[in-house]
């Protein structure tokens, strides 16, 4: 009992710490721009600086947190649902679906002004979202529902590979889109505005409530499918709901920021390396962790070689991976992936 309450205390402390880190990083993010570090205080005297801080830097910083939070949540849900520590949010094919959507729209942009007219309304964000969610639906159709985890996993891998091949083919045939595609594949928070932030915030709230409500299914599943079924959990329906959560969170994040690597995979592991807890808390903490991780990566991405930018996906891999490796070494062979 004391062990549980001890772990609960650590979990609360971690949550509080991650929130405070998030706030600190937002303030830092408002100060880091194309000229490197500059004080926000100057913004009040210069209208251009004010505009930049208010309409470019702040939404981008908040957007980075939200996208990271969505991916962290999706990662925790996916790892619980598939009972696999290597599961990540892109497992059901959404990444390659989104790439294909973006590639096709980029190609069509150049074909005719007529096509561009309604495509602009859909936009790259819309195309990425439709592609990501479409790919998940395709995976579900191929796996004939959500009953069999292994079948779902395999179908996801196949959809990922096939759609990925199609977008590679598109890039080869129309090389003008290659660079823009590469930017999308590496991810960028550069063009996140307030509307995108509101959208991501709404989806985050909705999905967090849903996964919080159904987190007991994930706890049951961690004991094995047979045990979970014997506990009387309505696995099929709840699994479907959690797949919807994964698709929505991943689709929204990918649409706004591109295919940001590693956040969804690493965030739950980082949380588990600190605290052992049930899924309800794990999902929330992974979400906070993912947000902090992506925001830190985004700030470094625009700081290190300002006014140029590094692709943020490169930094999430370096930061998250480096930290995870350090944790693994420090804990002397204890597996950070185990537990929960």
């Amino acid at each position, binding site marked *: 009992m004391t062990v549980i309450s001890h772990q609960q205390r650590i979990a609360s402390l971690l949550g509080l710490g991650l929130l405070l880190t998030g706030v600190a990083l937002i303030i830092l993010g408002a100060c880091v721009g194309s000229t490197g570090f500059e004080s926000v205080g100057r913004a009040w005297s210069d209208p251009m600086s004010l505009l930049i801080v208010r309409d470019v830097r702040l939404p981008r910083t908040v957007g980075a947190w939200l996208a990271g939070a969505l991916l962290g949540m999706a990662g925790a849900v996916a790892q619980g649902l598939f009972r696999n520590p290597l599961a990540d949010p892109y497992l059901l094919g959404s990444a390659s679906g989104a790439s294909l959507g973006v590639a096709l729209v980029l190609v069509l942009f150049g074909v005719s002004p007529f096509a561009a007219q309604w495509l602009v309304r859909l936009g790259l964000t819309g195309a990425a979202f439709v592609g990501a969610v479409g790919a998940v639906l395709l995976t579900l159709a191929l796996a004939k529902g959500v009953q069999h985890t292994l079948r779902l996993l395999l179908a996801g891998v196949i959809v990922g590979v096939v759609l990925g091949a199609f977008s590679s083919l598109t890039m080869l045939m129309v090389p003008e889109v290659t660079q823009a595609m590469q*930017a999308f594949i590496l991810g960028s928070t550069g*063009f996140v505005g307030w509307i995108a932030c509101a959208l991501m915030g709404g989806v985050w709230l909705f999905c967090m409530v849903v996964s919080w409500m159904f987190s007991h299914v994930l706890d049951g599943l961690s004991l094995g499918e047979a045990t979970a079924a014997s506990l009387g959990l309505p696995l099929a329906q709840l699994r479907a709901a959690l797949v919807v959560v994964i698709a929505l969170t991943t689709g929204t994040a990918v649409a706004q920021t591109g295919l940001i690597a590693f956040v969804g995979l690493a965030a739950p592991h980082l949380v588990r390396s600190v605290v052992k807890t049930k899924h309800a808390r794990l999902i929330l903490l992974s979400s906070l962790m993912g947000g902090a991780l992506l925001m830190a990566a985004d700030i470094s991405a625009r700081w290190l070689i300002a006014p140029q*930018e590094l692709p943020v996906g490169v930094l999430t891999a370096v930061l998250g991976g480096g930290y995870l490796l350090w944790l693994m070494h420090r804990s002397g062979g204890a597996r950070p992936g185990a537990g929960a």
Partner: protein
Amino acid sequence: MKTLCRKLLLCLAALASLSGSIAAQALQVTDDRGLTVSFAQTPLRIVSLLPSLTETVCELGQCQRLVGVDRYSDFPPVVRALPQVGGGLDPNIEAIVALRPDVVLLATSSRAADRLQSLGIKVVALEPKTHADVRRVLEKVGQLLNVPDAQRVWRVIDAGVTAAAQSLPATARQTRVYFEVNRAPYAAGESSFIGETLTRLGVKNIVPASLGPFPKLNPEYIVRANPDLIMVGDRNYAGMEGRPGWTAIRAIREHHVCVFSAAQSDVLVRPGPRMAQGARIMADCLQKMSGKAP
């Protein structure tokens, strides 16, 4: 016996020196990999795997020597009828070999060079990136194809760029320009091929040479630089006004945005003999926008 031997040796030496002088007369071209490729005679069958090299061959009046091109070569229109042998980075080796070319022209970045050489095909790798490179490549290809007036062709192109620059009114020269290569956003800096053309036109580029030819910029940098004019291809233009904070940029506010068609973009971004035409396109844009009331 001794004298016979000596005579024989002398004969051999004479023969050797003769063949040496023949070799010296044979064509030798040093390409951008630093390799010297020698040809017994002027190549008559050419495969080009880079659009700008295809254009260079045709600009020198040797279009008829092309027997195959890559799938991206589309100018002049006559080359579209030629057999296509894949792309520069993924060429169809078999199709190239089947065309029995005397020489294959390709970019240094292409992996095909080694494979083609091992099959006994002569390869000249050239990678034009700047205005100076266009001139150098013209001369190299002219030398390779034994076209004597490559220098004159260059002077015509160069004069075309100067004419485009001189056609601009003095007011247009004050314009601060942002040229977006693609929506990441990657910009064309002063040291890029496009940037060099802009410099020749006398306008200011908001991206200095110190940032490299095609830097991936923080979008905030462009908002802060507040350019008077934006040049962008239609593929990358869609949605530009909706980017956060961009409505504050003077060029967007006053609709001073030149959107180039795909065909125009090809002319602008290919470091080849159509650079004068590219300069003309940009000059037209500048003229149109400087005449337009805000």
